[in-house]
């Protein structure tokens, strides 16, 4: 008797648990935010934005995940485990546009909504891509940041991340397209710091040696811009070489303070994580469908309009300098 009762209790408990699970699965939309690597300030801020969106939507569970180093292999493992967990949507910032595409295609075949944001995936591997800003705008912003402090013109050099970084390469390409508007500014070279502090530092030193008249270093990458600023300080060239580009206020506060960097720009990563989550939610719940010309809602940020490649832009980058750095350095 007692054994029977115990079995019965266990069964009821199991049934209740099962029902609970089913209810949970019905209610909560599980959106995975996959980043290039864990532990990068920018992505931590994006995750915060995703949580804001989840709070606003109410029935969303955010899974913030990514590999421990910036490799495509690591991301593929993460994607495979997300497929096994049957999440509803994946929003990814890719380490390699092509390498992760097959894994993401497998996810889409299993009914998972896939979008990319920040650093894109090849079109066959996602339903849409959200650029933090439009690439032409960023390309113009980074050269404008340098030009702002070079009224007479001068020499500038680029310090990028890796040779295969999707976003950095596109921004530099777009920058080159508008160079005609800056006839007095000469881009003397492009070097790659691989997003490692020591290599970026060394490359920045190399630039200052190779081009003694260098006026500005443009680093459209957060590790590179910090390392370049430190290299300029150590070389005693503050005031001669202006380090600018894209960086985070918290990481650049010291460089602004020392004068190595006059100004830099970044979009709001909190908004970016927020927008990616909103888009993933709207696509996963079939509130909208991705396609050329389609409009998908981004909550408080309005609508994203998709172009022929199913890509959309969020907003313009924002310039930070000595006047506003203190206000933002504690935020992200």
């Amino acid at each position: 008797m007692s054994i029977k009762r115990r079995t019965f209790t266990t069964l009821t408990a199991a049934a209740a648990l099962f029902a609970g699970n089913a209810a949970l699965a019905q209610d909560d939309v599980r959106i995975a935010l996959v980043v290039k690597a864990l532990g990068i300030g920018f992505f931590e801020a994006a995750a915060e934005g995703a949580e804001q969106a989840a709070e606003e939507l109410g029935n969303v569970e955010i899974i913030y995940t990514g590999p421990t180093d910036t490799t495509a292999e690591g991301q593929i493992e993460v994607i495979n485990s997300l497929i096994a967990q049957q999440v509803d949507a994946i929003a990814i910032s890719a380490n390699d546009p092509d390498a992760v595409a097959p894994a993401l295609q497998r996810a889409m075949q299993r009914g998972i909504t896939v979008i990319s944001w920040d650093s894109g995936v090849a079109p066959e591997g996602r339903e849409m891509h959200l650029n933090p800003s439009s690439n032409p705008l960023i390309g113009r912003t980074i050269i404008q940041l340098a030009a702002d402090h070079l009224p007479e013109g001068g020499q500038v050099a680029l310090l990028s991340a890796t040779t295969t970084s999707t976003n950095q390469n596109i921004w530099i390409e777009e920058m080159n397209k508008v160079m005609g508007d800056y006839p007095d500014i000469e881009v003397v070279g492009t070097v790659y710091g691989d997003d490692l502090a020591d290599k970026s530092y060394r490359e920045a030193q190399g630039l200052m040696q190779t081009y003694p008249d260098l006026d500005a270093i443009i680093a459209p990458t957060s590790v590179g811009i910090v390392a370049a600023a430190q290299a300029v300080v150590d070389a005693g060239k503050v005031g001669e070489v202006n380090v600018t580009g894209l960086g985070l206020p918290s990481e650049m506060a010291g460089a602004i303070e020392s004068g190595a960097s006059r100004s830099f720009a970044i979009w709001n990563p909190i908004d970016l994580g927020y927008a990616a989550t909103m888009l993933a939610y709207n696509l996963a719940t079939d509130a909208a469908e991705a396609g050329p010309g389609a409009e998908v809602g981004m909550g408080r940020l309005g609508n994203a309009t998709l172009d022929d490649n199913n890509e959309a832009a969020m907003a313009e980058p924002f310039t930070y300098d000595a006047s506003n750095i203190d206000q933002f350095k504690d935020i992200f």
Partner: protein
Amino acid sequence: MAFLKSREAILAGAILLLLALIAWRFPGFVAPDNLARVFNDTSPLILLALGQMAVILTRCIDLSVAANLALTGMVCAMVNAAAPGLPVPVIIAMALALGALMGAVNGLLVWTLAIPPIVVTLGTMTIYRGIIFVISDGQWVNSHEMSDAFKALPRAELLGLPVLSWIALVVVALFALLIVRTPLGRAFYAVGGNPGAAVYAGLNVGRTQFWAFTLSGTLAGLTGYLWVSRYAVAYVDIASGFELEVVAACVIGGISIAGGAGTVTGVVLGALFLGIIKNALPVVNVSPFYQLAISGGAIIIAVAFNARASRSRGRVILKSAEHAS
């Protein structure tokens, strides 16, 4: 004459040739102050390579040095950010102790559990990197959060050279003394050269390896502080992949991977060889797409050269017997 044929002389010759090649493309590279800058930039590599040398001499390998460096660096940076008033010598003592502790963990696992060192240090490498995530929560420690004294030490100049370079020079001298003049230093060679014979000579193989790992860890800890204060930033990925460069410096410097052979001079030259390549590639205008291939190619050539040089010729013994048959 024997010196001219030694591996160190050949490597020194290769370095001079390399410098000549670079000077041909970019003459400013061989200016004395630039060479001093290159040496300064190579100092962390020299420090780690010396520790690695002790480990490799005892037939082990330490893949956790870069992770040890990163964790110690992060702890130093976080302590400094939390308590800016703490004097730098205290932070350095802490870095040494923490590095030694992490090295000792490797050593103990190798000694007491007799796990192959490559497995132990692969494991601890991941564990140490993981701990950085846990303690830092993935956050960076940025330059404006570090105290000025913390950042000033490695770049302070003493007799024309930065302190970072002086530390490397002093450690090289002490290390050479340890290797050549102390029982422990000789034990490294004995244990790696022939563990069986070492046991019969009364040496404890496991304990010698333990001390090699502890030494390597201590130097990694010291480098951790220097690295973080030099680049004025601490984050999870600092010095990522650096352990391979450290092993490469040892191998180029003629430390036998099979243990028991190699010199301090060789290791320093090996590290300088890599340091010169790393610093020269940005200024000689080589396409960045080729830079990795060139670094890798240089390593393989150097190692192939070493392997050829160290191959001992077979000896025909019992000549009379050979003729008789």
